[in-house]
């Protein structure tokens, strides 16, 4: 297709279309996580014994990962700033740093899960562990998806193309981060 439609550049609502869209995506994702977490909370309240199961999760690892994600979000903010200034190269580098945070997060998760699985705490062990792996697993998929999109964004930013997308992917990344902020206390601390 040769020309971009005008529709993509108008802005009746006074907000860039891409930013509007990402907020709608986030709204629909909130209800997905809302479904899982709402179900988890109802079950958690109904099964006192889950406190014993939850005692097996390692809050220090969770805390470390929270820290990693928050730091990566900071890098995303700085990338946005750089993009606003038109410094695509720096924005790209900061996005790579954000991705690096995502990678550390995933590696720590992999370590944590393999430890737990090897000690019999598998997804089928009981409903607590089913929720544990499902909720964190869906979240991890979002981390991976965010990283993939971020690598694309960085490669554009490096060429000073589509710089406004740096902000968009940043918003998404903050959302992924915020979901973790909910998961962390629910899965690691509420014992």
């Amino acid at each position: 297709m040769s020309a971009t439609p005008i529709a993509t550049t108008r802005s009746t609502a006074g907000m860039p279309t891409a930013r509007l869209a990402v907020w709608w995506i986030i709204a629909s994702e909130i209800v997905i996580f809302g479904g899982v977490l709402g179900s988890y909370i109802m079950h958690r309240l109904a099964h006192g014994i889950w406190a014993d199961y939850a005692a097996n999760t390692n809050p220090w690892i969770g805390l470390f990962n929270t820290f990693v994600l928050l730091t990566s979000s900071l890098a995303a903010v700085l990338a946005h700033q750089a993009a606003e200034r038109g410094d695509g190269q720096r924005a790209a580098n900061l996005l790579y740093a954000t991705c690096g945070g995502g990678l550390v997060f995933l590696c720590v998760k992999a370590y944590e899960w393999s430890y737990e699985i090897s000690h019999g705490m598998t997804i089928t062990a009981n409903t607590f562990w089913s929720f544990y792996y499902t909720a964190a697993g869906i979240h991890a998929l979002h981390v991976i998806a965010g990283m993939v999109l971020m690598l694309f964004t960085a490669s554009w930013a490096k060429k000073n193309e589509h710089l406004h997308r740096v902000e968009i992917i940043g918003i998404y990344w903050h959302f992924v981060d915020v979901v973790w902020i909910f998961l962390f206390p629910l899965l690691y601390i509420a014992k």
Partner: protein
Amino acid sequence: MAESIPVEENGHHAGDHRDHGHHEMSFSEKYIFPLDHKMIAMQYMFTGMFMALIGGFFAYAFRMQLAFPGIEVPGWGVVSPADYNSLVTNHGTIMIFWVAMPVLIAAFGNYLIPLMIGADDMVFPKINRLSYQVFLLSAIVILSAFFVEGGAFGGAWTAYPPLSTKAEYSLTGLGSTLWITAVFLEFVAFLLGGINFITTCMNSRAPGMKMWDIPMVVWMIVIASILFMLSVGPLLAGGIMMLFDQNLGTAFFDPDKGGDPILWQHLFWFFGHPEVYVVLLPAVGIVADVMTTFSRKKLFGYKTVLYTAIGTGVLSFTVWAHHQFIAGIDPRMANVFTVTTLLISVPIAEMMFVYIATLYGGSITLTTPMLWALAFIFEFLIGGITGIFLGASGNDIYMHDTYFVLAHFHYTFYPIAIIGTYAGFTYWFPKMFGRMMNDTLGKLHFWLTIIPFNGIFLPLFVLGAAGQHRRIYDYQNFPELALPWMQDMRQFATVMLLIMLGAQVLFFYNVITSWMSGEKAPKNPWKANSLEWTADSPPPHGNWPEGLPNCYRGPYEYSHPDREEDYWPQNEPA
């Protein structure tokens, strides 16, 4: 003459933009992987209609079994109990998710939103195309279940566990997994599509088009998309849990191992009830446009309709457990849900009154689209009123899972999905294909659809009230349900179904012959106001290559006292 902004003023190169129409596109660019919202709309429309034929065929097969138990059904063979379950399950699933959703939301939304708000396309054409492709994939997945070992899913369209999670109950293994995967993919497709609808409508309106100048059908599709987005999440989550239960051996919904089957019901109906409004609202919007055009009157209470639609949307999140009155929920909860359910009938009734008030005193022309619009109101009223019966929990304890419920929701869904679609399709046909439809055939098709429709479902109210339970394969096994008058009614309903399905051949014949050789349609055959009628019929790629329209007023300015003509197009300066 209508004024329009030259394209350059919108920050674009005219030549650049005109490339849309003239740039040589290959066949596959144009028809198979299009970016043009109108072509994507057609893809959705015809995929939806194709799926409707399949869903209709399933209905034919199981109704034949009900009317003439054990016979060899032509085209299917003997319907075994497992067949029966997969037929009803897939009939329901396909009609809601692969017919009503793609046609009412995706096809009409894609076609109408840019044209009616004066834009040249959706804001994200590539996401739009992706949405259709994911949808097509989902359709292939759900149909493929019929060819795998064990056959297609038979755990009902509501997929209650443990029936749906255990092969020994639903008799299907891979079929269940394919079913839930297909539904999941379909939801993803509509989430992608919804992003486009909402952002396009927020950001790409014609200069001068204020919120209250947006045609009702566009509003309704946007509200429906928002409702869908906010309600589908929990079910997507539930879908993942169900996939894990089926395939990994988790026990989210298995009470034996600490799970909870009622949890699924909550997740399902928290989505499932708003979903009925997701498909209702676009049809209500279509009817608004058709009715005002053919009664030459302003829509009575434009804002009222809008506020009630939003109110219905909000309320629809509070009624879901009226589907679970006999699922063992606390009776005090049942009271709460009875109240909210009865409350939601108020805005719905209000919408219907508004429409009747619009008709009052209008100069009505009974064109084919208008007939469909009137039938919509008439039939939907029956659906809505019987909903009130069911909403009262005490009554529902008796009615639940009987044919009364079945008749209720067919009197709501059928007007929406079938009658609403026909109203819209026959109304916009001249715009879509540049030809007029044959009106005589259209009217014949109308009567041959509407009369048998009532013939099918009115008896089911009676049967339901007499205690006929749903999802039973052969009533001969239950002496109190095998009374001769009951069997007569079942046969009558089935014969009516055959007539109605036959009449649809007429529709397709009409579409094809009118498309090929119908009378050429002018730009504005119905003398309607909204912006789509200012584009050529059919509109070229880019919709208005000579420049996008401006907007000066609302879409329903018919019979304005100060004007000679009885209509006042939105793009005409005062």
